[in-house]
């Protein structure tokens, strides 16, 4: 995530709202420790559930119009991470472009799989099940693949349908985790401002915590500070949760007044 990336205000307030709704729905903040840990746990679970020798997740890199390997487990491990494919290449590309899962076997026959690349990693799968990762607002954020069914020659329709449901859950968790990353700065700014304005209580601890968080040295620990804040607030009860939502809504509205929203893709 590029910290200098221009954050669109309109999108930001939408994201804040979405995040808060999901936090309220769950009754407590269940924020992941970090995106990487979350992704790793998802592919590990996918490989286990679907009896696959390997699994990986590719996420959208919008700037480069590419799908990027973010995490992988099993035989295909290590070298894959960081590799990028154009949107319209390969099976993952088709799944990404159409939002439809696909299961194939005899993959060696399929040149779209980009054999040179697969060979360079020393791993060419016999069977693939690839499923889109679709966020709760219908954006395709990436593709999850499980490779080489251990007890059979190919993945079946039941695997495909179960994987669809698994991917739905995974996509929501990944999307939320990404949003947390991108809204972190804005959230901190908003909370700081409100802490400053709140003269009814001593907020100096909060202010200094937010000052530290804003230094941006350690993004993961910043996220944890925020996650803890959410946890504390949501654990107190309904009134406190509502207050928190009000605080953030106020922030979102304030941001709307400070700059005109631009269209953003």
């Amino acid at each position, binding site marked *: 995530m590029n910290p200098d990336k221009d954050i669109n205000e309109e999108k930001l307030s939408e994201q804040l709202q979405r995040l808060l709704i999901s936090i309220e729905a769950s009754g407590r903040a269940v924020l992941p420790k970090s995106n990487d840990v979350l992704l790793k746990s998802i592919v590990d679970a996918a490989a286990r559930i679907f009896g696959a020798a390997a699994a990986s997740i590719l996420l959208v890199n919008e700037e480069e*119009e590419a799908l990027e390997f973010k995490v992988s487990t099993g035989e295909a491990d290590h070298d894959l991470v960081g590799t990028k494919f*154009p*949107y*319209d290449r390969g099976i993952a*590309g*088709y799944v*990404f*472009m*159409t*939002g*439809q*899962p*696909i*299961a*194939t*076997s*005899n*993959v060696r*026959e*399929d*040149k*779209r799989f980009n054999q040179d690349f697969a060979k360079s990693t020393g791993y060419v799968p016999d069977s693939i099940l690839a*499923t*889109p990762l*679709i966020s709760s607002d*219908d954006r*395709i954020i990436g593709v999850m693949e499980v490779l080489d069914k251990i007890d059979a020659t*190919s*993945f*079946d*329709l*039941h695997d*495909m*349908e*179960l994987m*669809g*449901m698994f991917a*739905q*859950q995974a996509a929501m968790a990944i999307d939320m985790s990404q949003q947390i990353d991108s809204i972190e700065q804005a959230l901190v700014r908003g909370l700081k401002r409100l802490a400053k304005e709140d003269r009814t209580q001593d907020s100096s601890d909060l202010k200094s915590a937010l000052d530290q968080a804003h230094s941006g040295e350690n993004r993961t620990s910043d996220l944890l500070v925020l996650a803890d804040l959410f946890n504390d607030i949501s654990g107190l009860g309904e009134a406190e949760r509502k207050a928190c939502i009000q605080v953030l809504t106020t922030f979102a509205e304030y941001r709307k007044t400070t700059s005109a929203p631009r269209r953003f*893709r």
Partner: protein
Amino acid sequence: MPEETLRPAWSQHFTPDAIQELLAQGPFAKITPEWAWGESTGKGVRVAVVDSGVEYDHPALEHCVQGGVVVEYDSKAKDNYRIKSDEKPLDVSGHGTACAGIIHSIAPEAEIYSVRVLGRNMGGRAIQFAAGLDWTIENDMQVVNLSLSTSLEEFFGLFHDLADQAYFKNMNLVSAVNNIPEPSYPSLYSSVISVAAHEGHDPFTYYYNPNPPVEFGAPGIDVEVAWNKGQYLVCTGNSFAAPHITGITALIRAKHPELTPFQIKTVLLACAANTKRQK
């Protein structure tokens, strides 16, 4: 996740235990596969494959591809898309070639047209898809294979209108239902022939589900298909079930050009493997 959501999404209706026996009575009992498509080759029926393109010179297609178009997203163009003629179509993925290959294997003399609606611009996907479907309506296609769908609610009305226009122009739209358990358009409209996968392999064995929205189940599991660059591979998905019904529909239309879209659906129902004829 609640236990009941762990059932398969749409193809649950076509598992061996779930298939219900149906009864054709009176004049409907006289409709047999032999009457419906016996000896038909689909000759002259224009079939569009709206997909990732079709590799026109793939050996499996035996030169049945008559041409086609590419629908590109263009934010500067009117309605945000541009249509280009594609005399010798190619396939950016292999998926459209797979669908065309299945259709051709069932209806070898049907004329296949490639309508490529996939490109790198994700934001334009539903628009490209709709524009491609619109092209098939404007260009007198008779059967359209849609192994694609959109789940974007804002396109519900547009696709519904297109499906109605197609219906009133005597066309059959055959659409794969989503493999993911969520609504998708246009597969769930009543005028569309919606298809999910079942486990069999005989291309002419398909089933009717009396509890729609998904009406037909056709082979879609471990199907050997043509893929681009002259390749073949084995695929699973509802995407590969729809072209089986598209092919059979082309056969019926070639043999019975007088039939209307709803009559064709009736014929398909009467010839389903789970329909028993009362003598």
